[in-house]
């Protein structure tokens, strides 16, 4: 099994240290907008919300970003983590991979006009090492296949859309 990032969102306190540690390691500046990991804190809705959720790349075994790239700039590294990596010299900034990723893990640098993503900090992810509560761990994990979860996300959205439409029709018939 390859080593991957494991995220336990119920342990996340929402301090966003991981975002800064990431940008510091990968971009040499402390700027959450250039982080490969994002923590979203949901603050509205009925209590209790699953409020703080960190999101980052899962290095899918069937990576949609990889197969979507028209210039073969995205490839799988021959390391133990089986990291999906981007070759910035090849990347033409077309953004196809950004659209292809179902999990919002492929980001786009507006200044450099290139795509970027988590590449696991060459085996020592900064986010996991700064996380104070153990919400982000780096350990062995089964390969992640994107297809089923991606369809699930799409399914959720289709179903809620359909239900809302039904409700709207019923209400307007009244």
């Amino acid at each position, binding site marked *: 099994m390859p080593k991957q990032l494991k995220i336990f969102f119920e342990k996340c306190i929402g*301090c966003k240290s991981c975002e800064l540690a990431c940008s510091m390691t990968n971009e*040499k500046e402390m700027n959450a907008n250039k982080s490969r990991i994002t923590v979203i804190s949901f603050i*509205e809705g009925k209590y209790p919300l699953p409020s703080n959720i960190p999101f980052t790349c899962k290095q899918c075994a069937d990576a949609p970003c990889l197969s979507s790239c028209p210039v073969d700039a995205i490839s799988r590294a021959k390391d133990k983590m089986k990291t999906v990596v981007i070759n910035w010299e090849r990347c033409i900034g077309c953004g196809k991979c950004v659209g292809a990723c179902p999990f919002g893990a492929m980001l786009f640098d507006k200044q450099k006009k290139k795509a970027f993503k988590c590449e696991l900090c060459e085996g020592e992810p900064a986010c996991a090492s700064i996380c104070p509560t153990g919400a982000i761990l780096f350990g062995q994990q089964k390969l992640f296949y994107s297809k089923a979860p991606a369809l699930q996300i799409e399914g959720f959205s289709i179903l809620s859309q359909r239900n809302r439409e039904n409700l709207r029709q019923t209400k307007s018939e009244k």
Partner: protein
Amino acid sequence: MSGYPKGGYMQKILRVDLSEREISEELLGSDLLSQYIGGTGLGVRLLYDELKPGIDPFSSENRLIFMTGPLNGTLVPGSGTYAVISRNTLTGLATAAQANGFFGARLKYAGYDAIIVQGCSEGPVYLHIEDGKAEIVDASGLVGKDSFETDMLLRKKYGEDGIEDRISVAAIGPAGEKRVRFACIVSDRGHIAASGGVGAIMGSKNLKAIVVHGDRGVPIDPLEKEAFLQCVKQWREEAQNTAMGKTVDKYGSIGFFIPYHSRRWVPVKNLTTNVFPGEECFEGEYIRGKLHRMQPRSCHGCTFHHCHTVEVRKGPYKGTVGEEPEYEILAGFGPNWGIYDPGAVTMLNSLNDQLGMDAKEASFMISMIMEGYEKGIIRKQEIDGIDLKWGNVEAAAELLKRISRREGIGDLLAEGVMRAAHQLGGEFLDMAVFVKRGNAPHIHDPRVRWGTLFTQAISNTGSQEGVDMTSRGSPELGIEKPTSEPDEYLGEVQAKTGPARQFAECLIFCYYQSCSLKTMAQTLNCLTGADYDVEDCLKVGRRVINLLRMFNKREGMTKEDDCFSSRLGQPPMDGPGKGKSWVPTFEKARNAYYRAMGWGEDGMPTRETLEKLDLGFTIPMLPK
């Protein structure tokens, strides 16, 4: 110093003139930065330079300064803090209030180290700052809205629906709009810049809120990246391993309640007693384990399980959702009002935050009226028919609302404890709890917590709490033994801990994330390219304390203002401090403190002290 600073600062401050509706940017000189660093220190220097002496805190000439420091918005734990500096509405002296959360970090991401607000807008407005651009926007739709609602409306307007993502709002509630003298500024829903009526000053300028967001990063020299990460890791480790850090991680500041009560430090019924029944209901384990359902909502870069949004699970306030109260509020809205149900405190705390008032002043205000009511000094019809018995939660809530709207009796009480006591007269003067020229101290029974009462009395902002050395020494500061008695030694110790605390307020980070001065200096050097050692840090602290003194002297402060109200001088009725009082030895300790600070007998810095600290420009204020 050329080429300084190398990193940390955004190198720009924003000036907003609300009268002229003008927005401009300014640079700060590197000398000023290296002498005052940021936070409270730099803010006080700007205030000293810009304010004419003797102006009304509510006048349009007063400044409201929002400051950050070089470490804000970095990986330093708890570095989302900011300071608000202005002229205190309660005392007329200086004030410096701090709030944690994310606002301080995001102000820097928006491109600025500081905001100076001056003038006064004709109609209600808010300020929107994004990516190095600022605009003044009409806020008539937000008038009368509470602080949480204002926060949410602006967050939705500029951020994304229902999520907290890289955007911060600092707002005032109805109390600030009505210029309640102890109104506060509420940022990131529940993080409060409380002291000195900064919310009332914001209200007097007709400024309802400030929204900050942006995608700027905090600059750092790429060559120092590894070294900085090492410093930060050291800082985080030290902070997590202090006794304070361990307690806060486990139970939040609620964890202090039981140890404080065992020493009789918890204020009960306006300091008329020191014991109360049902202490087990205030145990961290009970509140966190049984009473509340919790959702973590930490501040920027925090390492603790500290701040939470909670839902009360049992008791009369079952179902109430609010922020988890801090120790001081738990004590101040609980036993100090004769309320022994922490669920009720959670409700009252949220209400008070939404209305936008300082909990310190609110606590000792309502407790004073409650005591007067119970003793029959003030009658029901005089307080708008509210049955203000000890422990009446609904009555306390009603009174808070009336104060925030300045309605009925609330109009008088909105003036703060000291003014209200003077107005009501008679025995109220003996019941009022305040320090200096009239601001409530931190919510303890400080009569046996000698160091706390002493620091509050000599504090230049009236609110700063000292480093408490009652149970330990500090080799780093050259303090060998704990301060256990109210004597001259305590005054000397304060002269050593005060500058350390003041230096930390120049860096400005969450108090619970404290580490050694050495680590602070190393981190700062690494980021800015400065060369501070521990002694330099203490010098910065001393410089700021002396400048604050001179500011206050300019506003007419004398040695007699370094004092506390008569209730705080009375000996406690029971507990380990029974029969003891600060009064007999206070003056001796105060003189010892003045001497150790290099001040004259009048409690003011001498010419030599000022010159040594590069404060020569204040010397004309000294008597010839």
